[in-house]
């Protein structure tokens, strides 16, 4: 079974995804990291927790771009891409919260300390869960696509404000917020960057891969249900 009959078994970027993710796993767990108080070995979570959020923001960004494209030319392809990339974005968001809770358990003392950053990201995910509730409440597919695209565009700026702007104003344990220095300030030495950036690219590409698979799955489902 080949996944793409024209170009051979796998596209170049899928091979790149596999290489980058394996590199992240191996280098992330085995390469030397700076010794820091409190963080200790848990600093390796930087390679997994932070790329989750990067991937989520990028996937949701793709979703918004496709929502705008859908409103401008009403092509079904864009609606499908918008929904599925929002889906993948939510999965990354949940993984980001879970990895963050794990990290918080060992550095802040408990998994959920009602930190502004934690609460904001949980509420931020609610925005996108509401997006799917909204989609579920329509029976007419054209209305559904159009109005959920409008909500999607409205939600993204509110989501960004919630996640990036708000936690910075209050005191937070999270690095980069409430006067705490960001990670760059003290520990992201050049060795960590060598793993950190490939991890971001790898997880983002994985997100896009999952999205394309889901779109193809939906297309086949549609074909089986309705014919052409």
């Amino acid at each position: 079974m080949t996944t793409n009959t024209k170009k051979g078994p796998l596209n170049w970027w899928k091979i790149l995804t596999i290489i980058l993710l394996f590199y992240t796993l191996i280098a992330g767990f085995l390469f030397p990291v700076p010794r820091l108080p409190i963080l200790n070995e848990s600093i390796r979570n930087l390679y997994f927790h932070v790329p989750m959020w990067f991937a989520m923001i990028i996937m949701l960004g793709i979703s918004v771009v496709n929502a705008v494209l859908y409103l401008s030319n009403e092509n079904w392809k864009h609606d499908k891409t918008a929904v599925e990339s929002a889906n993948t974005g939510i999965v990354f968001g949940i993984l980001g919260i879970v990895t963050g809770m794990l990290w918080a358990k060992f550095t802040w003392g408990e998994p959920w300390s009602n930190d502004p950053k934690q609460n904001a990201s949980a509420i931020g995910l609610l925005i996108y869960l509401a997006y799917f509730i909204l989609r579920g409440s329509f029976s007419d597919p054209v209305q559904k696509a159009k109005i959920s695209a409008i909500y999607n565009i409205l939600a993204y700026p509110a989501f960004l404000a919630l996640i990036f702007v708000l936690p910075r104003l209050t005191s937070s344990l999270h690095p980069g917020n409430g006067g705490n220095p960001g990670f760059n300030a003290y520990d992201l030495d050049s060795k960590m960057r060598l793993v950190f950036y490939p991890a971001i690219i790898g997880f983002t590409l994985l997100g896009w891969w999952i999205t394309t698979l889901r779109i193809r799955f939906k297309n086949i489902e549609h074909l089986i249900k309705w014919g052409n």
Partner: protein
Amino acid sequence: MDNRVEDNLLFIINILLASLSFASALTMISAIAAKAGNNATLMAILGFPVILPLLLLIIKISKAAMDGLDRSLSIDEIGIVLSINVIIITVTYLLFPYLWRS
């Protein structure tokens, strides 16, 4: 009753800001909910996460106004509420025609 507002001007400005924020955010949300069969629950579900950041900021400003803190401490929050408003109003202004026509 020892619960007076110390800084009346800031408090009134904050009330105006709050009304503007709620009006701008909820206009679009309620229009969307109305298109989805006028479901009252949907309005709450969609509105809550969008309103919450604004609400938190406004509560912070009004607390500062009631305690009579120096106004320079609240200027950051006022700026952010205003900029969120500008973003939401701009997006709503651009999107409303699409919602109306559908």
